């Protein structure tokens, strides 16, 4: 048996404050290295129109289960101590947080790599679908935004 890993996953239709969640979680899982990611709703659509709201549909039952499995798999693979995932569902206003991923580990490398890999995993393998609402019209988003090339 490997060491006990804390995996905490929550889906919520309510807005959440990433920083107070992180403060509470971190107090329960003190570690030398913490890596976080927060994704927020862009104020414009993919077609560069003003966004009124983002709707996030999920497959109830499967989404929670997949998040838990993906988080556990990545935590074990990278040998980290604790993982936190908080994910919004339903209607989300621009600039609000959609997703928070946090990883606590003994070393910075595993913390960072696990956080990054888990974010990619949940973007591709957890059953969520985004619809952008703009001027009263809803448009389903086809796949994910690219990682971005930087520079």
């Amino acid at each position, binding site marked *: 048996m490997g060491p006990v890993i804390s995996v905490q996953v929550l889906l919520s239709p309510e807005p959440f404050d990433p920083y107070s969640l992180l403060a509470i979680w971190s107090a329960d899982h003190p570690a030398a290295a913490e890596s976080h990611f927060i994704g927020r709703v862009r104020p414009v659509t993919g077609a560069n129109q003003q966004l009124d709201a983002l709707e996030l549909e999920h*497959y109830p039952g499967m989404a929670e289960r997949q998040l838990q499995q993906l988080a556990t798999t990545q935590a074990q693979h990278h040998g980290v101590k604790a993982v936190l995932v908080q994910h919004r569902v339903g209607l989300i206003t621009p600039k609000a947080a959609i997703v928070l991923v946090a990883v606590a580990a003994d070393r910075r490398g595993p913390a960072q790599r696990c956080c990054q890999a888990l974010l990619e995993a949940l973007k591709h393998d957890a059953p969520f679908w985004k619809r952008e609402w703009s001027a009263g019209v809803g448009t*389903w988003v086809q*796949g994910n935004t690219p990682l971005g090339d930087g520079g």
Partner: protein
Amino acid sequence: MAAAPIRLRLFASLREEAGWEQQDWPWPDQNQPPTPEQIWRSLGLTASLDDLRIAVNFEFAGRQQPLQPGDELAFLSPISGG
């Protein structure tokens, strides 16, 4: 007693294109258990199964996975989470 039907589910754009969200697919009177691919073909929807993913009882599954009575079968359009 008849075997329990398969519960079919669709989401997001796929649900809207099909015009339904869930339906029960009666367990067929055949020797082999049905597969997701067989059921997809019988639905007559326009999307190609190549562009979709399949979940059986809340887990990803292959298109040839033999189904059991009472299974929940979902066809998932491309995911855009996080």
